[in-house]
C-alpha cells in the first residue's frame, strides 16, 4: 500500500523546459471513492523558436536563459502565490528528462526552489511519461481507460511502442533504430524542398496525391521485431528525386512530376510502418486499449489508418482518441503524469532531484 502524501483533492503545479518550449500548468484533482475528476485550471506555453531567431544566436546559452526569463513570467501569470502569500498548489511536477541538460536544469531548479520554500511535495517526471499521460487529459479517454494499454509515442525525437500495465508501469516493446518518425517527415520534406516544418506541410500536399504513385521502402516491415527504421527512407527519396532529374528547389513547384503524389507516397510509407508495428505489438501483447501520442499523432492520415486497422484486425481493442491540444511539448501532460505518481505516493526529495538528460522510460 502506497503511502498517502496528499488529500483526495489537490492541485498540481507543473513545469516543462526540456527543449524549445517553456510551459506551466495547474491541474486540479478530486477523488471520491472510485470516481475522480480532473480539471486543467491553467496552461500556458511559450515557444523559444522566434526568440532564437531574433537574437540570431548571439546570446550565449540563449536556450537556458530564455527558459529562465519565460518561466518566471509564466509562473507569475499562473498566480501560484495568492495575495495572502499562500501557494495555490499542493504539489509540484517537473520534467527531469530526457532533454537538453541546460534547459532541463532551469525547470528542475525552479521546481526545487518552490518545493524548498513551500514545503510541498515534488515529483520528477519523465518527459515521455508526460506524452503518455497526454491521452489521459482527454475526458472521453479517461472514461474508457483500461490497462493494459499499448501506446505509440511518435514525435520529432521519438518513435516508441510502450506497453503500460498500470499507471507508472511501462515497458518499451519497440522503438526506432535510427530516425524518429517526425524526423523522417521533416527530412524527406526538406529533400523535396518543402518549407519548414516539413511534416505538416507534407501531409497538406499529400491530401490530393496518390499514395501508390511511388514505390518506397517500408524498412523492417517484414522483420518480426517491433523495432522500426526510417533512415533508409531518406536515401530512397533522395535517389528518387535524383532519378527524376530534379533539384530539390524545382520539386516544390511540382512542374515536372506530381509533388502531391510523392508526398502521399512518403506519408504512406511512414504511416504503414507505424500502423503495422502497432498492430503486431497489439497481437503479441493483447492490450485493452491503444493510444497514439506525440507530435506526429496529429497526422490525420495516421489517425485514420490506425483507427481503420485496429477496427478491422483487433475488434476487441479500444482505440482511444488522439490527445488533441496536447500533441507537442506542454506542461499539462507533465502535471497529469505527475499526478499519476503522486496518487501512488511517489515523490522525490527536493535536495536530490536533478536533471537527467539521457533518461529513458
Amino acid at each position, binding site marked *: 500500500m502506497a503511502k498517502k502524501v496528499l488529500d483526495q483533492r489537490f492541485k498540481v503545479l507543473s513545469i516543462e523546459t526540456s527543449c524549445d518550449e517553456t510551459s506551466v500548468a495547474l491541474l486540479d484533482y478530486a477523488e471520491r471513492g472510485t470516481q475522480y475528476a480532473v480539471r486543467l485550471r491553467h496552461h500556458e506555453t511559450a515557444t523559444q523558436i522566434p526568440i532564437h531567431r531574433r537574437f540570431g544566436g548571439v546570446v*550565449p546559452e540563449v536556450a537556458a536563459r530564455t527558459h529562465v526569463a519565460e518561466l518566471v513570467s509564466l509562473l507569475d501569470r499562473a498566480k501560484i502565490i495568492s495575495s495572502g502569500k499562500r501557494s495555490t498548489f499542493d504539489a509540484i511536477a517537473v520534467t527531469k528528462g530526457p532533454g537538453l541538460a541546460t534547459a532541463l536544469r532551469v525547470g528542475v531548479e525552479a521546481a526545487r526552489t518552490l518545493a524548498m520554500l513551500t514545503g510541498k511535495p515534488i515529483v520528477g517526471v519523465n518527459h515521455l511519461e508526460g506524452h503518455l499521460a497526454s491521452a489521459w487529459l482527454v475526458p472521453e479517454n479517461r472514461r474508457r481507460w483500461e490497462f493494459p494499454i499499448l501506446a505509440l509515442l511518435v514525435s520529432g525525437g521519438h518513435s516508441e511502442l510502450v506497453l503500460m500495465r498500470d499507471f507508472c508501469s511501462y515497458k518499451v516493446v519497440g522503438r526506432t533504430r535510427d*530516425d*524518429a518518425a*517526425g*524526423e523522417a517527415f521533416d*527530412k524527406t520534406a526538406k529533400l523535396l524542398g518543402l518549407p519548414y516544418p516539413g511534416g505538416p506541410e507534407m501531409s497538406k500536399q499529400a491530401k490530393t496525391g496518390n499514395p501508390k504513385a511511388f514505390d518506397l521502402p517500408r524498412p523492417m516491415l517484414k522483420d518480426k521485431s517491433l523495432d522500426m527504421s526510417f533512415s533508409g527512407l531518406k*536515401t530512397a527519396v*533522395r535517389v528518387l528525386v535524383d532519378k527524376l532529374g530534379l533539384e530539390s528547389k524545382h520539386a516544390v513547384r511540382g512542374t515536372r512530376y506530381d509533388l502531391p503524389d510523392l508526398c502521399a507516397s512518403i506519408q504512406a510509407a511512414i504511416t504503414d510502418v507505424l500502423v503495422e508495428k502497432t498492430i503486431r505489438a497489439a497481437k503479441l501483447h493483447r492490450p485493452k486499449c491503444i493510444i497514439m501520442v506525440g507530435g506526429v499523432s496529429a497526422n490525420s492520415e495516421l489517425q485514420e489508418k490506425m483507427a481503420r486497422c485496429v477496427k478491422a484486425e483487433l475488434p476487441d481493442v479500444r482505440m482511444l482518441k488522439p490527445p488533441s491540444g496536447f500533441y507537442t511539448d506542454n506542461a499539462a501532460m507533465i502535471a497529469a503524469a505527475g499526478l499519476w505518481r503522486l496518487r501512488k505516493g511517489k515523490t522525490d526529495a527536493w535536495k536530490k532531484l536533478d536533471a537527467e538528460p539521457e533518461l529513458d522510460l
Partner: protein
Amino acid sequence: MRNIKISSKGKTTAVKVPSENDWGLVVEKLLPLIRPGTILAVQGNLGAGKTTFIQALAKALGIKRFVPSPTFALMRSYKLPKTVNGIHRLVHVDAYRLKDELELQVLDLDEELSDGKSLLVVEWPEKIEKWIAARESRVIRLKIV
C-alpha cells in the same frame, strides 16, 4: 556506391563503399587514426549514409545499443564496454538543427569533453565550422560524396 574522403593532418585518403553493408571498410581505415579527444566531422547530404556509417563505427567500438539519430536530442553519449585506442566514451552530436556555433553553447561541449577520453562524432559539421576549425589539430574530416 559512395566515395568517402578521409582527411587528417593534411593527408587525404579515399575509400569506396560499394553498398550499404560495406561501411566497415571506412571504419577500418579510420580506427588507427582515432585518439582520445578526436573530433570526427562527418559531412554528407540527407540520405548519404551518415547514420549507417556511425552505426558501423559504434559497433566496431563495441557498443551494443542502437545509435539512434541525435537530430532532436542534439547529443547522445555512449560508454564503451572496453577501452579502444584509449577512448572510453562516444559522444554523438548532430548540428542539423543548429544555426551556427553560438547555438552549440547550449550543449556545453567543451565541458562534456573535458575528461579527454571521448571520441566526438559530429554530423553536419558545416553548421558549426568555426568551432570545428578552432580545434583543427584534433579533427578528422570524413566526407561522403
